[in-house]
């Protein structure tokens, strides 16, 4: 895994909450930055990953991971996604 930093920026709103919490839960090393108004910046070395199972559990309903598009502001890294996971990483 690369030592480069990946990041993902989400809007700071209720729709983003289960995603943010899933990133927290599934990426224990990740850093969460709230210093910029309106958004949350999530950084990690190498990769950031969430699974459909955890996001749905946190939202209390079946979540389609592509709902991420509604709250996504920006990201850095290569995207890999399927129905059950979403991942950003550097190779």
């Amino acid at each position: 895994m690369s030592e480069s930093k990946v990041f993902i920026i989400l809007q700071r709103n209720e729709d983003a909450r289960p995603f943010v919490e899933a990133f927290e839960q599934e990426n224990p090393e990740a850093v969460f930055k709230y210093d910029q108004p309106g958004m949350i910046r999530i950084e990690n070395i190498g990769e950031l990953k969430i699974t459909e199972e955890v996001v749905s559990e946190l939202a209390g309903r079946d979540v389609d991971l592509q709902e991420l598009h509604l709250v996504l502001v920006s990201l850095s890294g290569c995207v890999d996604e399927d129905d059950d996971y979403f991942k950003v990483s550097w190779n």
Partner: protein
Amino acid sequence: MAKKLNMRKRYELLTRGLGWEPTYQPKEKVFPQESYEGIKIVDWDKWEDPFRLTAEAYWKYQAEKDKKLYAIIDSFAQNNGHLNLTNASYINALKIFIQGVSPLEYGAHRGFANLARQFSGEGAQIACQMQSIDELRHVQTQIHTLSHYNKHFTGLHDPFHMHDRVWYLSVPKSYFDDARSAGPFEFMTSISFAFEYILTNLLFVPFMSGAAHNGDMATVTFGFSAQSDESRHMTLGLEIIKFIVEQHEDNLEIVQGWIDKHFWRAYRVLGLVSAMQDYMLPDSPMSWKEAWDIYFVDNCGALFKDLGRYGLRMPKFHEQATAEAEHLSHQIYFTLYQFSHAAAFQTEIPSKEKMDWLSEKYPNTFDKYYRPRWEMYAEMEKQGKRYFNAGLPQLCQVCQVPMCFTEISKGKPLDLSYRLSEYNGDKFHTCTDACKAIFDHEPEKYSHAWLPVHQIFQGNCGGEEISDVLKFYHFNPEDSGEYKGSADDISWRAAHGENNDIEESA
């Protein structure tokens, strides 16, 4: 019941097998622009869109984004949200945005529609179609959002007309025209990779966060709504670069040349953004330099480390852009300040608090090089002689920015930087080694440049007097000049019950 298909399968069904082999015309004639740039594509099936959005999901999420945005625009208008800004001077940044950036979104819409027609691979066609629709959505939502401000403030009434004519808007316009008049692969490298991937974070993220900081919830919302599409576009930009380079070894050198060129072209456009961010936001959450360090130095450092295995390297002249980071916003905003009598926005000397913030954010440069200039202008203003440039500026033949840049890389930040090329018996002036290299590579192209200052002198902009030119630009007299005492300032103060006698500047 049939099992639901997984994402990969759904995406494959959408993007494969929809094309056909032409029979009564050769393929090169059906897709006439695909090969002349020298890019060799062996197998379009290797194209993979990183976000595997089907048409159904695409429409669903885009509709959802729009519903949210329009609900916010409505409530913003009903609650007179424009009165909750930090200050009406903030609107000047929005004026540059709608005059300079929104027409680029429209240009991107047209560019990607063309690409969807010109590429023969179905995956690429669909990605370009979706992006084309996204870009149209951006320009529409931006116009809808800012139309509320147009009811209350100056300079927002005719951005598309202005974009095609006005001197500072020729900077973004000429960059997009440069990309759109190139072939399809160069356009894609320019807009999707150099602009969207490398640089749009610098445009949207700190600026929109800045809008939130200054109470402009409407702009935040369209900004973030557009930016959620940008994430897809950026990722697409990265994939296309990898795809092209993996297709054939001959492609690498061509693509690297385009990355070098279009990184610099797009970076020069962002000079306007640096001035908006550091000077035109009354409260700035982050300086241009800080944003550059995060979004270019760190982020693109990681990106090009990853791209190294394809043989790609950082864009040429990136060191110069990084060296300029402590100077750029100041040099650009001084230029806007002294020519704002010919602009559809107003400028002013930064407040004391703003200057102290600039000192703090630019400890190596602001007090030494730039604060004295503001002090000089403040003295002139006190004597009733607010400084407006009495002439017109020399422009760079390539980036079209007034030649305000200095020899920073040579350690001489107080010497204006001049570069000269000769072509076909004539002189062509550029602002840096980077712009000169771009000119020298394709002088046939840049000798056609429509430089606004020269066009005024040739008599093609409405007349000889500045007032004729401003009419040609569709400016109204209250659009331009000094912010203090402007129509926007007066109506803002009146709406907030403030005295309209302008205070003596301290």
